[in-house]
């Protein structure tokens, strides 16, 4: 059964159309990640699913029920916000139980669910503290706990990690992945961090300017991008887009080669000079200039390059991607 279905969702604020004809299915237990550049409408789509904004047209089904007109609290969803959004006047326990109290659940249920969530998130020691007395990471865990106790059919996360520092972000990311395994509930997760998207997702939805560019598993999108935007968005460093003429291929407008698929070769078709070297220890990223065209190469191991040094680079034709003048993939 599908946990959630979107059918041809459009959303306009006044005259500005923010979401264009978005259709999507989320399967039971699936982890779906929305990625895309800032302002592409990820949060708006999430808010439409949550019921915080009404779609201008289109249908939303959650667990088989049409919920277009259902208020957020009755949709069987729980949401975690980027800014935590904890209730300042309630302690951790109060924050986690407020929704259940609104549903008039008996106290035994409250206690049991809070206990379980706290154990999962390591929050037992903080139950009586107020949000102002918690660190950023703890606050985000409370916010996640508040979502868990509701036992929703669908979790919605809006960039939950972007206020945390790098180390904590990795830890919390792993925690969310574990949570997904333990709960086995469908989750929708918004981010613009592609590492989060690649590591967490069963299915990635790449968005741009309010439109879905491509939907697929992380490896599908990586290995088989539908267009130049998706190809350039996933993968770090980003894919090189070289004019066909530069690589001696007059049949194609643009040739895309991932930095790791370029190699040093005396017979390589690209002649370039070293412009910038990033030595990461395990890898070396080299930005070389072929005329005015920058080319990024990712080499395994350590390579002592000098600036201005000439390079000859080659790639295997079967590892390259070909695009037409509109940025669409051609095979």
């Amino acid at each position: 059964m599908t946990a959630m279905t979107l059918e041809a969702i459009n959303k306009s604020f006044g005259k500005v159309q923010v979401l264009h004809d978005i259709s999507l299915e989320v399967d039971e237990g699936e982890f779906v990640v929305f990625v895309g550049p800032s302002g592409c409408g990820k949060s708006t789509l999430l808010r439409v699913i949550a019921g915080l904004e009404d779609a201008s047209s289109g249908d939303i089904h959650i667990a088989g029920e049409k919920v277009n007109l259902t208020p957020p609290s009755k949709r069987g969803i729980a949401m975690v916000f980027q800014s935590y959004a904890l209730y300042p006047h309630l302690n951790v326990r109060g924050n986690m139980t407020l929704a259940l109290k609104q549903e008039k659940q008996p106290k035994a249920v409250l206690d049991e669910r809070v206990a379980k969530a706290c154990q999962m998130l390591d929050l037992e020691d903080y139950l009586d503290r107020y949000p102002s007395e918690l660190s950023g990471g703890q606050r985000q865990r409370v916010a996640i706990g508040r979502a868990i106790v509701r036992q929703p059919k669908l979790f919605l996360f809006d960039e939950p990690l972007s206020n945390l520092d790098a180390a904590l972000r990795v830890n919390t990311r792993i925690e969310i992945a574990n949570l997904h395994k333990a709960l086995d509930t469908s989750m929708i997760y918004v981010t613009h961090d592609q590492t989060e998207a690649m590591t967490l997702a069963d299915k990635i939805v790449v968005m741009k300017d309010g439109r879905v560019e491509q939907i697929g598993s992380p490896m599908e999108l990586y290995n088989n991008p539908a267009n130049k935007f998706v190809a350039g968005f996933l993968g770090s460093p980003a894919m090189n887009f070289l004019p066909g003429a530069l690589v001696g291929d007059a049949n194609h407008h643009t040739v895309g080669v991932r930095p790791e698929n370029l190699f040093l070769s005396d017979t390589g078709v690209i002649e370039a000079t070293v412009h910038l070297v990033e030595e990461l220890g395990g890898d070396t990223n080299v930005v070389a200039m072929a005329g005015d065209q920058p080319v990024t190469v990712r080499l395994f191991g350590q390579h002592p390059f000098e600036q201005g040094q000439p390079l000859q680079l080659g790639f295997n034709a079967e590892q390259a991607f070909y695009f037409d003048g509109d940025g669409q993939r051609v095979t």
Partner: protein
Amino acid sequence: MYKARSNLLNTAAMHGALILYMIIALFPVFVILINSFKTRRAIFSEPLALPNAETFSWIGYETVAQQGDFFLYFQNSMIVTVGSLFFILLFGAMAAYALSEYRFRGNLLLGLYMALGIMIPIRIGTVAILEMMVATGLVNSLWALILVYTAQGLPLAVFILSEFMHQVSKDLKDAGRIDGLSEYTIFFRLVLPLVRPALATVAVFNMIPIWNDLWFPLILTPSEEVKTLTLGSQVFIGQYVTNWNAVLAALSMAILPVLILYIIFSRQLIRGITSGAVK
């Protein structure tokens, strides 16, 4: 700013200016207070002298206590001030919330219309107000004053509060909606506590003019049982003879309640409870 603070001379100049201003501001109050404890003769011979054993006298306070029903006037003033503040804050905050939170047609126009009231003094409409009060039979009742002061205070309240309501985290309100809180609960339990400093500001701004107003009590509530303190004190100011002892004593006593209200609200002003709600 921090540079200036480290400079001793600047600090001294700044504090000097502030102290000077404080003295200027408090001087009339001080003169009223000391003279209210002096005999009539001493008030006129040496208005700036402190009361001593010879000139000290309760006569002003005694007159006030005997003449007129000052306790009743006090009570009336208190009811009018507190009542008006309550309605200004309640309706002001509600209107501000609606204007800042909900998108609807004419939102901007409605906001401008409400702000217009800031620029137009309500006294221009005195005659119309009096006619309305006569028609509704509210003349000589405290409700007349409360309604007028509420109308007078609302424009600025809406203007200031909607600015602050804009700043309350959208996520927090949305979290409430997802957790099933009603819009009223979100307003009263989540939003209002977070804009408490703004509420206190509005209260302080409105309190003093209401407490001190003579115009509307004179016109709308002149009868004995609904007189306010300011109006009640006028009996001592005659056309030819003014009983200064009594006037000064009445004024001194009138300061007290506002002072207490002010202290209550300024506590709220300072207390920052917003930390920790959002990052």
